[in-house]
């Protein structure tokens, strides 16, 4: 029971944060004439967040082996999340822009925390004898 919660609740919480944060306080820059890179990073991050949240919810109803797989998927999703604003899509170039100052670091922190929790969950589940 304890392992189940450790292996699912963090994904749900962090997934929700990843989905909500870019749409609220860690939003993309405003006032652009057209959508910039930060807008697309924002939308992608929300999508990835919803997926991580869904994986966490599924983990609530799964056995240890399945949870391990789900957490590995969460790790992969978090890596994707880290890549989106840095490599794949990027954010605005200006150092003092809101997307670079708030959205990028928020997503990085959430991504790293997501990986840490998912790795812990997977490790705990790998130790339980089936």
């Amino acid at each position, binding site marked *: 029971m304890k392992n189940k919660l450790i292996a699912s609740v963090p994904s749900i919480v962090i997934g929700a944060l990843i989905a909500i944060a870019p749409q609220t306080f860690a939003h993309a*820059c405003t*006032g*652009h*004439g*057209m959508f*910039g*890179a*930060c807008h697309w990073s924002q939308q992608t991050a929300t999508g990835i967040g919803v997926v991580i949240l869904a994986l966490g919810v599924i983990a609530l109803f799964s056995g240890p082996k399945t949870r391990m797989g789900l957490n590995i998927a969460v790790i992969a999703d978090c890596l994707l999340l880290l890549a989106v604003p840095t490599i794949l899509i990027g954010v*605005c*170039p*200006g*150092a*003092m*822009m809101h997307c*670079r*100052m*708030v959205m*990028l*670091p928020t997503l*990085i*922190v959430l991504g*790293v*925390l997501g990986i840490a929790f998912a790795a812990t969950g997977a490790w705990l589940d790998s130790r339980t004898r089936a």
Partner: protein
Amino acid sequence: MDTHVTLRDLPLANLARKPLRTTALLAVVTVLAVALFGGTMLGMNLGNGMRSMERRLGADLMVVPQNSANQAEALLTGSNSSTFYFTRDIARKVERADGIAQATEQTYISSLAAACCEEKLQIIGYDPATDFVIAPWVASQFQGELEDGQMVAGANVNVSTDGTIELYGRSWPVVAQLANTGTGLDNSVFINQRTVPDMVEASAAVSKRVMPEEYADKAVSTVMIKVKDGYDPQTVATNIKRLDTRFADLGYVYPGGVTAATKTALDALTGYMAAFVAALWAMGVIVLLAVFAASANERKREFASLRIMGATRGMVNGVIAKEAAAVGAAGGVIGVALGALGILPFSALIGSRLQLPYLQAGPWTVIGLALLAIVCSTAVGVVSSFAVMGRISRGDADIILKEGR
């Protein structure tokens, strides 16, 4: 290979079998490590920003237009950009006052957001011939003459890959980009003063004209003054006011005073922070001592068992110390990781929110601070565990066993 248990495994087994106690101890140590690591790093970054700002403010006195003194100060410390100016003939007259060793003119223009996804830039026009303020630290990145139309960019300015900046619909070549200073200057571009009229024209072409056309070639925002030895800036300011009755209305900014005021604010902040971290550590040590001392009582039997099996006093103390050190080190690592995650990615945000010069320390300093925090966390664990050792080494093992009955 031997696969059996040894005394070295006992501390970890003790921690693993008491997850609640271990988690509680870890949480306490983690909080301490976050406070020490984060607090020290924030304080250090503010100090770095302060020193950086002091180095950048080479003038003793700035003479600015009427009612512009506050804007000029904000420009020095924060990241508020602005445009203000008087005319060159006033500047020239000001420079004739008694007690001036060096004087140079600068022109400030606040740009609108330049291209898409750009922030406002502070454009600083300076005169390379008389300058003594900017050149000394620009020199570390750029030697030679700044040609008309060329730019030197501050650290936060986004220079495109072809080495230009898009501003007012034109591409301006950038000859050098400066290192981070943690001040408003990071959002500035520096141009030759002869380029200012060009810039004004360019602004008129694409958006709101930044200043009337007739001022474009004679606008001066500030006269930066270095006073002669034996004069203080206030005296020189008085001398300037004496030159012309109108000069009494000009703004006089003393960068030394601005620095001192910022320093006072910063000292207060770091003082509070240091006191807070110290208080937190004092409480943390008390909590840890209490937890360890309490566990000493309930674990007397366990340690007496080890003695009966033939463990030396040193072995038993080793088990206790290793347990504490493992918790301390793990808490330290987690704390440093959390602190780094909370501070490093957000350094730009912290700097802009604090409204104080904030310059992120370099990687080696951060690594050093991290090690310090981990070492201190480990040490606090080990020192607290002495409370256990003191209790169990008193009295015969047999008496201890009987007490546990």
